[in-house]
């Protein structure tokens, strides 16, 4: 384990950015997790991958960063707790700037690799089927599909601003993959294991290791193939499905009720068939908020 960056902290020990390195030479892969301190499925998945890499030396270099935002994780907070800044909105960073800007600059420099992966959980109020978010075409799409995660979500250029790590990697000419799975604040062991298997398949595809795990993809879609169900009004949302469930048109996805008294306000039914990839976990919802996403082109 190497400390690639550290900075003095008041009242406690220094902040340290840790890197685990396995193997040497090319190709080089960097996998980052825990940039948001309340999203630790990625940390668990990366540590599972580390165990596999201890048993099987890779033919190339794998850099793992299991937990970037240690201070945030200590407090179950997404952002850097001192000034509430999001590290993932601070790229490319500044080695002479604020603590968060220095961490961002150090992380970008330390992840100088051919293939880079940033692993997140879903937000604390939603649960996401493990997925890789990739561009509509090109080498990153090929790599993302090779992960064999349950969902491959091909997306246009949105959310790729250079202030985020994915955008900064792309600006630096690296192949960047954005992986999301499970829910923030909680540890989803099953989803973490799924992500770890996807990371192994990626390394196998790049020729760094072997794996016998078969692909687990159940949906490979674009935005147009995803049915988004939002709350028509505020209330208390009770889901009737879990992520990964297959549904047909008309399937009951959940219902909204009055928070006090429980009168049912209305039901949410699938407009298309497919796989449930996102489910609202925190039940108090505002109007227009995302409740369920269904990925699939069946019976539209």
């Amino acid at each position, binding site marked *: 384990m190497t400390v690639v960056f550290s*900075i*003095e*902290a*008041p*009242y406690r020990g220094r902040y340290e950015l840790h890197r685990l390195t396995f193997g040497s030479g090319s190709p080089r892969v960097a996998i980052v997790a825990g940039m948001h301190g309340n999203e630790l499925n990625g940390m668990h998945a990366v540590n599972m991958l580390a165990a596999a890499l201890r048993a099987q030396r890779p033919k190339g270099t794998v850099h793992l960063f299991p937990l970037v935002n240690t201070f945030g994780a200590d407090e179950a907070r*997404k952002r850097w707790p*001192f*000034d*509430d800044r999001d590290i993932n909105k601070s790229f490319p960073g500044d080695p*002479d*700037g*604020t*603590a968060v*800007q*220095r961490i961002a600059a150090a992380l970008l420099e330390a992840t100088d690799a051919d293939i880079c992966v940033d692993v997140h959980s879903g937000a604390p109020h939603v649960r996401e089927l493990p997925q890789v978010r990739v561009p509509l075409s090109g080498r990153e799409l090929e790599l993302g599909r090779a992960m064999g995660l349950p969902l491959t979500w091909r997306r246009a250029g949105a959310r790729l601003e250079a*202030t985020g790590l994915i955008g900064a990697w792309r600006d630096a000419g690296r192949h960047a993959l954005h992986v999301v799975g499970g829910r923030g604040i909680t540890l989803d062991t099953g989803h973490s294991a799924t992500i770890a298997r996807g990371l192994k398949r990626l390394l196998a595809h790049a020729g760094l290791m072997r794996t016998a795990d078969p692909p687990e993809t159940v949906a490979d879609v674009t935005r147009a193939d995803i049915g988004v169900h*939002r709350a*028509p*009004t*505020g*209330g*208390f949302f009770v889901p009737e499905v879990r992520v990964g469930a297959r549904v047909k048109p008309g399937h009951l996805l959940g219902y*909204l009720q*009055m*928070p*006090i008294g429980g*009168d049912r*306000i*209305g039901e949410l*039914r699938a*407009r298309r068939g497919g796989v449930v990839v996102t489910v609202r976990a925190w039940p*108090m*919802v*505002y*109007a*227009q*908020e995302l409740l369920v996403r269904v990925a699939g082109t069946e019976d539209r």
Partner: protein
Amino acid sequence: MEARPHSRPDSEGVRWGRGAHGLPVGLLALDRACRVVRAPGAAVADLSRVIEIELPSGDTAPVVRRRFGQGERRVVIAAGIRGDAPEGIRVAHRVGAYLEEHEDRLSGTVDIFPCANPLAAHRGTRNWPFFDTDLNRLFPGKEDGHPPAQVARALCNDIAGAEQVIELRGARPAFSEASQAIVRHDHDVSAELAMHANVSVVWRRQPGPAAPATFAHQFPGSIVLEGGTGNRLTTGVGNDLADGVLNLLVHLGVLPDEGLPFHWAAIQRPLLVTDAQVHRVRAERGGLFLPSGAIWSEVEAGGVVGTIIDPLTGEAREEVQSAVSGRILAIRELPVVFPGTMVARVVTA
């Protein structure tokens, strides 16, 4: 069940609805430093709801607008985009109180949005609660987005076409700041107007990477007024900014200069600066920063603006020095710092 006024049919044509709620009583009660205080619950004829956010528990949070005067010429004054800037809200109400008494003298319309982010202001936090989102990074917003994005869109829709937009803020969190007007670096007209805002500095500022999603950026000639102390009221600064807003209305020709609550000669003559004249002073060490320089005091190049001490032993770790000679525009008042944390801004003439 009674349908909410703004509930709408979903894609299946089913109307979802719940009971409606009224505007919270006493919404416009003002603080003691204001010259006119409305009794809680008193009727407010000029009050409109720009948008009303329904909360999951059944309550509502309205974003309101107060309108004074009439006519096509329209000046907009907006405060409370973030919930940790009560100074701006106080100034908006002070200006509103004056305009209410002198509405018959207005040559045009003045719209005041006293608090664009009521739920954040309710908590005293920068971000919109639950979504933990900075409203000032969501403009121009989305009509079908989550509530903060809807508010951003509603504000833009309502303000579109205004001749002049003035945004009122407080100081940035953890800092005390001299009163200042911030305008876009390439907008000569607003820079010239801002010289009448009764502030210490007019800062022609280059937009940063986040600027396109801010409120002020949606209206190119907007003037942002700020100062005081982060998340606190600073009476002197609040009075200066309120007088400055009224003086801006005079220079825009919307308000006559007779009967103003200040003499024209009392209006400050600000220093006009660009980014090149505003220097950040950063901590080299982590610890507790103890400021020694006062706001708007002079500092020489190499002069000490504060000391960083070890938080456990009290031992001095660093004397933080200004690299330039000038005046202290902002100084950190929350003492905990990391290496690289900005502790002061010094502005040069």
